[in-house]
């Protein structure tokens, strides 16, 4: 694994490295007792971690949401599903690899899992198109959601996308229609749907997988109507103001909870999900299990009504 840290994380990483060096010395050169030093530094590290990570700004959270080591959908599937059989293609044009989908078993029960997928290295990133889907990606997702409905399997979607891909072919094949279609069809599905925004919840490309009964966000994920860069380019006339745009648009999980856009925040290990994949996955697993159990008690009609009411009430305005 390549070590990668964000600027504001640097002191934490440096201290961690010093501790591991000391530990290394202790085992290599027997006879040297560094226990006291190590303990002292570990205490300092603990304190520093709290200082750095407990008061992150919106832009810093955006950077963590986009962290190149952040766990992606396939990592979560590995850790959450006992078994997973990926299914491919939209049956009309192609298989969009920026969205992975398939049937898994979760806590012994079948679950349709659908999520955006980003790549780690250049080759993978290109294959996954940086997690930006074309229409066939959303259509694959919808096809498999309907498959889930057909066989009464609940759906978990994991959202992590900068947004729908803005390109010539995406437009030619109906990017807008594909997203819109998912919104109306998801509203009508008669099985439980839970969404977890795990990284970037980028505008329509995110929402196309997120018309769910319960929408959760991981602590350091973001949800926004347009990327901070896009917003900055339009309103500040320069992408350099992305940080200001992230602040102004209030993109974090706690902002979204306050605005009534999401139902719950899934806590992350200190420092972010990338510091501890199993712990991050376990937190998601617990929350998803609880929500699926609750939703399992509703009839198909109640599930549709529950989802409708959830979205119907979102909005802030004045007047009758």
């Amino acid at each position, binding site marked *: 694994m390549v070590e990668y840290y964000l600027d504001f994380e640097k002191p934490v990483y440096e201290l961690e490295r010093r501790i591991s060096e000391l530990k290394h010395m202790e085992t290599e050169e027997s006879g040297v007792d560094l226990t006291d030093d190590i303990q002292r530094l570990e205490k300092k590290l603990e304190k520093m971690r709290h200082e750095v990570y407990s008061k992150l700004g919106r832009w810093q959270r955006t950077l963590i949401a986009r962290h190149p080591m952040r766990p992606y959908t396939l990592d979560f599937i590995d850790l959450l599903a006992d078994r997973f059989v990926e299914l491919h293609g939209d049956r009309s044009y192609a298989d969009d690899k920026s969205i992975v989908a398939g049937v898994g078993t979760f806590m012994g029960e079948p679950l349709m899992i659908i999520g955006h997928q980003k790549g780690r290295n250049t080759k993978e990133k290109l294959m996954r198109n940086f997690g930006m889907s074309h229409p066939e990606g959303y259509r694959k997702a919808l096809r498999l959601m309907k498959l889930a409905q057909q066989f009464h399997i609940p759906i978990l979607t994991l959202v992590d996308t900068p947004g729908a891909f*803005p390109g010539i072919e995406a*437009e030619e094949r109906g*990017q*807008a229609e594909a997203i*819109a279609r998912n919104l109306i069809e998801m509203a009508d599905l008669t099985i439980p749907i839970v969404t977890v925004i795990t990284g970037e919840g980028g505008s329509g490309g995110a929402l196309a997988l997120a018309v769910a009964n319960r929408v959760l966000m991981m602590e350091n994920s973001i949800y926004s*109507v347009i990327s901070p860069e896009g917003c900055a380019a339009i309103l500040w006339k320069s992408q350099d103001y992305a940080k200001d745009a992230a602040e102004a648009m209030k993109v974090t999980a706690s902002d979204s909870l306050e605005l009534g856009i999401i139902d719950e925040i899934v806590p992350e290990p200190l420092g972010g999900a990338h510091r501890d994949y199993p712990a991050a996955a376990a937190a998601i697993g617990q929350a998803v299990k609880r929500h699926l159990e609750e939703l399992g008690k509703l009839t198909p009609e109640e599930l549709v009504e529950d989802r409708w009411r959830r*979205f119907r009430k979102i909005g802030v305005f004045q007047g009758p």
Partner: protein
Amino acid sequence: MVSWFRRRSSRPERSDRRKVSVPEGLWIKCNNCGEIVYSREIERNLKVCPKCDYHFRITARERIDLLVDAGSFEEFDSSIESLDPLQFRDSQKYFDRIRTSKKKTGLTEAVVSGSCTIEGKRTILSVFDFFFMGGSMGSVVGEKVARAIERAIQDRCGLVIVSSSGGARMQEGALSLMQMAKTSAALAKLRRLHLPFISVLTDPTTGGVTASFAMLGDVILAEPKALIGFAGPRVIEQTIRQELPEGFQRSEFLLEHGMVDRIVNRKELKNTIAFLLDAFTRQ
């Protein structure tokens, strides 16, 4: 016949330098063919260029007058107004932008809804006004569209939405994004009752409006040469770093790619809508 037209005071298309001696607003340079046309002639022609058939953008009020039976429009939900839930500010405060748009358009928000008859057929009509913050959809616009859909359900009649919008309103953040889901979910309810929804796309319709209710019409009509798409052309150009093909994202391009049902000239719009509504609601 042209009673629906009210003179707009600003004429950004006018070429000032060459027409110094001509009174304000008497001549208009067509955005498309560049011809200088007598403005009265364009008015008489429903704001369509008589030379090249270019459809000028029109206000929500003009559009309503063009579509409904005279005197039949009863507006509703005109008193829902925007708050500033994010306390948003860039170079300007969101609240000031709203105030400017209100003053400029005489509207309270970027969409006007009401019940009306169209060639005698009772219909719920929502019309976007691009001159109000680019027709962008925030909480109020989403709420008004959702309520219009609910009104059609309640009144058991057809629904027409004429879109003209840059998309979701950035100044309300993810609240605006959620309006896409809200309006689309409302359409799912309308669909269950077999009530028709005619979506009319006019110049320009992009972003979150296209990617929600606007592309979900039972029938989707578009005005000629309207810009219609998900991403704006500039964003696409910047992303892929190549020039866009001629006519890209225009109505004719969408028709060619199977994304809209039909391109309808402004003159034929009312009649076409009326015909479809009648065909779909006779039982």
